[in-house]
Every structure is written in C-alpha cells, then in structure tokens.
C-alpha cells in the first residue's frame, strides 16, 4: 500500500485519513508512533460500528500507557487491519503502510474540512496532544 503522504488529512490527536470517494483508510502518524513507542497491544473497533467524528473508537497500548484513537470522520467501520492486532509492532515499523488501522465509509464528507492538511499537521504536531 503506497499512500501519497501529501494528500493525508489529520486530527490534532495524530490520526491520519486517506480518502478516496466515500471511503477512508485510517492510521496514526509516524510522529505519534514514535511518541507512543513499543506498541504491544491493539484493540480494533468492531466492523459495522458507527462512529462520530473525533469519537474514541479503539485503543493502542504501549509498554507505558494506553492511548485512545479517535476517528477522523463520522461513518461506519467497514474493515479492520487484523494484521496489526496479531503483530502490533507493525504500527511502529510502518505507520503509513502496513500499520493502517481501519477502513471507514464516510457519512458526511463535508467534515473533511475540519481536518488538518499534511503541512498544517507538520507545523502543529509537536504541540498537539
């Protein structure tokens, strides 16, 4: 999976989404995986679950702490990456590739306007939480 990183949209809480049509793929940024470090456990959302934008929908745990992961958009979870559940370290190795987390069907694409573009995220990521 090769993503055009310049086209990704971000939440300030470090989740990225890559959108094509009404489908999005979600993961966490490379900056976030470095901050979290040593991902050891991932609890993915249930396929079919309907989430709101910025709703906590899954958990990533490192050795030191648990981190809530927020959905960048509203919609229905259509697929999850079982590979990261079995081998959580993939998120550290490939945050924009094999370490993606879930696919979501956007219910309100207009919400994308609320997200940061790659350039803006790059500026704020060190201060965001």
């Amino acid at each position: 999976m090769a993503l055009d990183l310049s086209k990704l949209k971000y939440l300030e809480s470090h989740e990225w989404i890559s959108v094509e049509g009404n489908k999005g793929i979600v993961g966490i940024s490379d900056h976030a995986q470095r901050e979290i470090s040593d991902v050891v456990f991932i609890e993915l959302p249930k396929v079919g679950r309907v989430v709101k934008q910025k709703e906590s929908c899954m958990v990533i745990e490192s050795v030191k702490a648990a981190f809530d992961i927020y959905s960048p958009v509203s919609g229905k979870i259509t697929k999850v990456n079982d590979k990261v559940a079995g081998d959580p370290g993939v998120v550290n190795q490939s945050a924009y590739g094999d370490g993606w987390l879930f696919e979501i069907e956007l219910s309100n694409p207009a919400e994308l306007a609320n997200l940061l573009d790659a350039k803006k995220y790059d500026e704020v990521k060190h201060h965001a939480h």
Partner: protein
Amino acid sequence: MTTTATPLKRTPLYDRHVALGGKIVPFAGFELPIQYTSIMEEHLAVRNGVGIFDVSHLGEIAVKGAGALAFLEAVVPTDLTKLVDGKMQYTVVLNEQGFILDDIIIYRDSFDSFYLIVNASNIAKVEKHLQKYARPDAVVADFSDHCGCIAVQGPKAVDVVDALFDKQAKNLGYYAFKPLEGSDNRAWISRSGYTGEDGFEIFAGPELLGPIWDRLVTEGKKFGLVPCGLGARNTLRLEAGNGLYGHEYDETRTPYDGRLGWLVTSTKEYVGKQALAAKKAGIKERVVGFKVNDKAPARDGYMILKDGKPVGKAASGTYSPSLKVGIGIAHVAAEHAVVGTKLEMEAHGRRVPIEVVKLPFTPIRHL
C-alpha cells in the same frame, strides 16, 4: 484562591539526559527521562547485559550519634540487631496507626552512623516523622539535595564496575556497601537495585556524579551498556515483583496487606506496633501477582473481578517485555489471593481473563 505549582527539580545529570535524547517527564517532583530509545530495548538490555539509571531523585537521610541505633530500632518494625557495619536492610517506616509511611533501605556505616534511602515523593514526610522521634544523641539530617545516585544493573554490571571503577566491588555481598575505590570517601557503592538483576548503586555528590555517568556511557559501550529511563525501571521492578510506594504501599496499607509481613518483628517496641497488632486480624486484602491471558497490558487502577463482582484493584500493571504478556500486581480479597485462581480485569470496558500467579514473574538473579 491561588495555586502555586511546586517547581520540578532537576538531577545533576539532567543536561546529559537531554543530550542523550532522553524523553523527559515529571516524576515524583523531578524531571527525569522516561526512556531514551525504547522501554522494550532498555528493559531487555538490563535483563541480558547492562543498563544504567539516574536515580538521583531518591532521598538520603543521615542518622548520626551514639543513640542512632536505638532511635532507628524505635521507628522501624524490623529487627536491626543483626545489621552489621557495611550492610543494608530493607524495611518500612510506619506511622502511629501502623500504616506505611515509606519503604526504605537502611545503610549501617557504624553503630553511630546510618544512611536511609527513601522514596523521592516521601522525603519531606519521612524527615518530619523522624524528627518527631529524634533525640539529643540521634540527629536526623536530610542531605538529598547533595547526593545523587546511579544504578548499574544487569548480569554484566559487575564487569563494567570492575573495569571502570572498583576492582573490589565484585567482592561485595548482596546488600553490602563501601566507599568507592579512589573516591577519597566521597562516593559509595552498594550491591543492590530494583530490577531483580545483579547490580550496583553508586552514591556521590553532584560534582562527582556527572563524570561517573560520562565514563559509564562512553567506556561502557564495549560492554553493551545502555542508558535506561523510568519506563524500563518500572517494567523491570514489576517483573521482579518489587512494590512501588504509592502503588502497592501507601498510608492505607500495613506491612501485612503489602507482602511485607516478613519485616515485622515481635521482639521489640516501635512506632505503630500496637495499632498494627490491633489491625492484623482485620486485614481483608492481600497483594498478589497476576498474569493476563493475552497480550493486553494491565494498568494500575483496573478493577479486578470474580464472577462479575469486584474483588480488588490493580496497584501496578504493564506489558512484560520478558514474558510477552500483560502482568500486574493487585490488592485482592484474601479468599481470592491464591495462586491459580482465575479472575478478570476490566480494561477499557472489556473483561479480560487473568490468573493469580506467584511473584516474582521472572527469576531473581542477584546474589
């Protein structure tokens, strides 16, 4: 109403942690590195080789005078008559109600000179408590701001210390200490630590501590020595089954519900004795280790359940880098504190099966 945040202290090694890329976090009133590269890597370096930790946040309190031994006997529940010069004793300080004010290590230099190593968050509290019982022939003095400490831990710690600092350190027994060779009595070394591995702790003033750290970092490289942060210190101590004040022990716990009953002697009088004796029969919880039946880490504060009913609470928890499963230490109702008992923990709304296991989680490998 105004709130004044207490400014965080820095250890004498702070600039070195920043230069080494340490990720600095507030801990017990200090700015300390939680990790340099990865908790996992640092943890495994200590289990398989050698790592160093800045533990200068620990407090040091001196007790001096002809009455020092009698004073200490009166403020800790442990029998100190067998503690000889140059040896150390782990124990607790109890308040008048028999609850744990702190867990400490007593270093006996001589009959009239002792050093107490106390937890950073408890320095002021313990000093105040001790001053209450101080006597003209036993003077209590906190010198924490003038003393730092570096822990060198792991199976190769002895090789590093032998090559860089002190040929005699390898002859030190466990929980023994002496002046560091060549330090002109300005630094001390003990064979001790918190990780469950062989290792040493080197105590020195701020001006000596930096150069010692630098030599360990540069010359230690050929031994594979790795600087380690608080994160690895926590996962290592947890695997070794060592409690941490504020988690396993606090002012609502007695030695009996904290797995520390072995510290209590009946052969003398001490502060808190009567209250402790009165409480003993009524203590309903015990400290146990538990393993998670999958990779989900345990966390402090997680509720522990039996058949859906709360029976306790996790005091500490993590993912065990050595065992590759979640582990934790919990206070649970005594009837469930039996090795092999199947319980559950509640993690983010999910009920996860756990099992009570024997502590420590990993073998203790110090002398």
